[in-house]
């Protein structure tokens, strides 16, 4: 175990964390603003990957597949929120079961449309090679994942901190009753956030499809990991999602490399401890 090992593992962990950030940033916004435990979020991720496969099959364009898949998933999320979740009001358990029901429906639909085989999203040649940095061979695709997460994170940060819409969202996170009181249409904020969250999950699905593959069951594999990120970082906090993604990405990689027998335990045990000791997570607000 020399420096190279540590550097490679750290790089792998950071790039996996970057992928997790795409999934978790949307989940944490949905969680923070609407207090909805959305168990469909993994299905959004999976659907993003599948829609991208279809777009690539139809047009041959990987670049086109990214926005199209993300938008399709955003529309699915929007409809789910408007038609079904709105009616429930704030009832965590019923929201959980409703979103699980939809996750199963999406699972079956994906199986019927795209079949049960594991598939890969093939990125353009440019992203398939590797580059040498300081004597380390780094796959281009992992660099691309990190770059995507950085760009998405920057856009989200600008959106949340520098725009009027962002200020309204932050107000709704901190105190939705008060936000309603000063005339913010929290219902529309919720709709926007849910669509944005689904959009990000779909985007993550396309990016993740070139890395993890796209296969039945991926949705429920990745979902609890995304929740670990959200909980560790703190519900509703983008900074938290970024830091949480890095922590979970690194913990997952080093856990698997160093203590394979307890590797998932090392991922979920911190989640338990944070929930028990500081339920707001590292960056969540009271």
């Amino acid at each position, binding site marked *: 175990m020399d420096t190279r090992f540590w550097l490679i593992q750290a790089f792998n962990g950071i790039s996996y964390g970057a992928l997790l950030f795409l999934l978790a940033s949307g989940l944490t916004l949905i969680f923070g603003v609407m207090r909805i435990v959305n168990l469909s979020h993994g299905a959004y991720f999976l659907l993003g990957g599948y829609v991208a496969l279809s777009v690539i099959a139809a047009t041959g364009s990987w670049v086109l597949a990214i926005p199209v898949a993300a938008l399709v998933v955003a529309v699915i999320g929007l409809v789910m929120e408007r038609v079904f979740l709105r009616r429930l009001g704030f009832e965590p358990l019923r929201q959980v079961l409703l979103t699980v029901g939809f996750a199963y429906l999406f699972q079956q639909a994906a199986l019927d449309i795209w079949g049960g085989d594991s598939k890969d999203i093939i990125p353009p040649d440019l992203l398939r090679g590797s580059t040498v940095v300081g004597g380390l061979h780094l796959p281009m695709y992992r660099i691309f994942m990190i770059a995507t997460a950085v760009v998405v994170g920057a856009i989200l940060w600008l959106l949340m901190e520098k725009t009027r819409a962002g200020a309204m969202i932050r107000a709704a996170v901190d105190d939705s009753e008060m936000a309603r009181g000063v005339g913010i249409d929290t219902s529309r904020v919720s709709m926007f956030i849910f669509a944005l969250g689904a959009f990000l999950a779909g985007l993550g699905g396309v990016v993740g499809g070139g890395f993890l593959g796209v296969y039945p069951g991926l949705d429920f594999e990745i979902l609890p990991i995304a929740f670990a990120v959200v909980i560790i970082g703190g519900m509703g906090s983008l900074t938290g999602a970024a830091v949480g993604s890095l922590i979970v990405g690194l913990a997952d990689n080093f856990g698997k490399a160093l203590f394979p027998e307890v590797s998932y335990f090392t991922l979920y045990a911190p989640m338990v401890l944070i929930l028990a000791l500081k*339920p707001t997570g590292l960056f969540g607000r009271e």
Partner: protein
Amino acid sequence: MFLSSRGKIWAVAVVLLVLAAVMPFASSYIVLLVTQALILAILAMSLDILLGFTGLPSLGQAAYLGMGAYLTAILATRYDFGLGWSFWVVVVLGILIGAATAALFGLFAIRAAGVSFLMITLALGMCVWGLSYRWNSMTGGDNGINIPGRPVFGIDLAGGVTYFYLVLGFFVMSLVMLYILVKSPFGRSLVGIRERELRMRILGYNTWLHKYVAFIIAGGFGGLAGVLWAHLNGIVSPQIVVLATSVDALLMVVLGGPGTLVGGALGAGVVVFLRDYLSTVVPWWQYLLGGVYVLTILYLPGGLMGIPARIRRWRAQQAGPQREKKL
């Protein structure tokens, strides 16, 4: 249709007796499914103690099922223990390990409420799943553990119908014990906590301790279900500890009717029918499972057991205006 509480007990007893009488004539596949439903019914009833009576929606009940099942499998394969009369020791150990796990988990979970409780129980459940999936040397990892055979003590449990009767016995015992529990002063105070925890605290109840004890009891029954599960299938793999099992258990309770005990059993029957029977008949069974989730949440807030009350209310509404006319 509208029975008194004594009538309901009779109705449940009749249903169970009919089940016991019919099983010897059913196909072995049906016997397997019914046995499976009864085991999951024990798990669902244990969850009902938390969700229906105490108001604690646990998203990690599969953990206790897993602990009981893995204990049974590990003892049977490594120590050749639990395949004779020692089966009864394993039953006790299975209950104890479920209860002990819940006692540990409860220290973390009971402090939380609402969404936090959902998340922390999910995380605890995933901890157990992670260990079962990865701890190869202990759990056999993804492949799981194969159990050589069912216990033999005087009677051989290898036969499907024999094993069904054993499980039915455990189910009835669990139902009776849990029924006595919820009718006891302790059970009444759990309902009080569900309705208004603050009031109970003001009245001098140690609500944390009440919830903690309920959590441990639920874990114990979960462990029992795990022991029975292990011998039903002869294999224990991470598949039983996945999040979907915990979520299914919640659905069973909500679908059947929270706070009714037998509702959970009813829900278990429906879920097993969809997941294990229908999936072998039609390829699109998951639309039905997903549909049941969605429709239950949208249209059946009181679950199946709540339907008679809803009809009664509806009839009263219909009858209401007419009665006024007569007066």
